[in-house]
């Protein structure tokens, strides 16, 4: 993946299997978000391919990729601040044709995230950061994705709210939702993920493995876990 002549992510090979929660951690500027923007079709890969359920999705438009079953919870949540919470949820079902079932899903989502049900008519911009994050996750889930991408879902949130977000992720994992989680919080990500990729500048993968495997790698522990805990 290039920005002009600058190679932002190169020779990246990454795989998410059905039902898995895969983590992608790395320093600022490593290329994590670029990877997600490329998967969702906002950016086009200059080389290589992206396959989803056996079919290439490279070069498709973002809405076409969503219709294939890949949904994104973007960095900074990017909920529609001038739309109400209800409208934000409703627009999450844009790609669906089963209107009645979609309406029922919105009601279920309001039960799952009670704060959204309470503030259904409130403008999205009036929600707190944590509430907005719940809305962003609910909006993405309403597309009934086969793969959920999450870009720094805990960025800028208070520690208690960070805990809440990781609880939600653990619940989704229990329910069998396939997820690719991009995070700077390496420790928490490795704890919750089935496998984690560690990316360094230019999109190269330094390490990958389960929490146990990564803990056993001396270099990795020194470079990432030590730093993250410090």
């Amino acid at each position, binding site marked *: 993946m290039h*920005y002009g002549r600058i190679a932002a992510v190169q020779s990246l090979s990454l795989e998410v299997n059905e039902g898995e929660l895969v983590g992608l951690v790395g320093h600022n500027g490593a290329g994590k*978000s*670029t990877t997600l923007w490329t998967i969702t079709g906002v950016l086009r890969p200059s080389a290589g391919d992206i396959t989803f359920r056996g079919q290439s999705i490279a070069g498709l438009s973002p*809405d076409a990729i*969503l219709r294939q079953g890949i949904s994104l919870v973007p960095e900074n949540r990017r909920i529609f*601040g001038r739309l109400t919470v209800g409208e934000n949820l409703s*627009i999450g079902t*844009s790609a669906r044709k089963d209107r009645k079932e979609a309406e029922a899903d919105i009601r279920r989502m309001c039960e799952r995230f009670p704060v959204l049900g309470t503030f259904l008519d409130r403008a999205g911009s009036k929600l707190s950061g944590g509430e907005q994050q719940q809305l962003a996750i609910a909006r993405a889930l309403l597309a009934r994705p086969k793969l959920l991408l999450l870009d720094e879902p805990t960025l800028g949130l208070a520690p208690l709210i960070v805990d809440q977000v990781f609880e939600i992720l653990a619940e989704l994992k229990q329910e069998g939702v396939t997820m690719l989680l991009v995070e700077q919080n390496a420790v928490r990500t490795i704890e919750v993920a089935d496998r984690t990729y560690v990316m360094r500048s230019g999109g190269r993968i330094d390490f990958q493995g389960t929490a146990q495997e990564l803990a056993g790698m001396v270099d990795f522990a020194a470079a990432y876990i030590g730093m993250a805990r410090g």
Partner: protein
Amino acid sequence: MSEGIQYTLDSIAFGSLFAVMAIGLALLFNVMGLMNFAYGELIMAGAYTMYYTRGSGWLGMIAMTVIVVTALSLLMELVAFRPLRNASPITLLVSSFAVSYSLQAVGWMTVGKGPQKGVEPYPWLTRQLDVSGVLVSRLTIITVITTIVLLAAMTLLLKRTTLGIQLRASTEDFRMAQLVGVKANWVISAAFAITGLLGSAVALLYVLRSGSVSPDIGLGPLLVAFVGGVIGGLGSLAGAALGGFVLGAIINALQATLPITLKSHTQLFAFLAVIAILVFQPGGLVALRGGFLRRFSRRRRPADEGVEA
């Protein structure tokens, strides 16, 4: 006193025309970053459609004008702007100038040739009604009612329909709207269709008011709607409508009240008022999320959209 009320009503009618036009400009500006200077040529197309269909009864004339202007608006999108979907706002702006000048040139070469053309106003439209001493023409009343109906319809569309929610989401964050499944082509075509519908209403009311038809008929209204939209705040549809209305009303009021020697300088005074408004309210009358300039400088490239710094 009654004269004052008369001027006020007329200014409201004139201003409301530009409120409708400014909404069309603001809609495209917010959805795809396009400041469509070819909007004036939609008025031109409407004006000539009215000229050529004026013999087919008022209903036929209205129907044909709406169809032609809306179709031209959609065609503009398809031919000139769709291929530039990911281009910068400056490129889109230059493209809109090109479309504007091309259509005007085509106008001069074809329908604009020969003697000055015009659409004679229907006598029952210009007949003045006496409402307790205040003389009001039917056209003034119809203009105000049409505007109110159009604004109400726009509000209902934007607030109550799926398309409206998708349009509002797209005006706020076009890329994110796509990422939640809103189809870019669909929502942009809808915005152009709405712009065409609004443009046809403006063409009908404006030509019935002014009577004459020429290929550059759209330039004046476009300037007023554009500048009005800027002082209102193009970032919001309500702001643009308010700005268009205020500037249109100011121009009309100045035309009615300035002494004869200064009448030809109406625009000078109107634009001095614009400068005064912008000095005190740089973000526009309805300063929502940044004014025109800030919005215009924003590029819709992925690199600006939160991709890692």
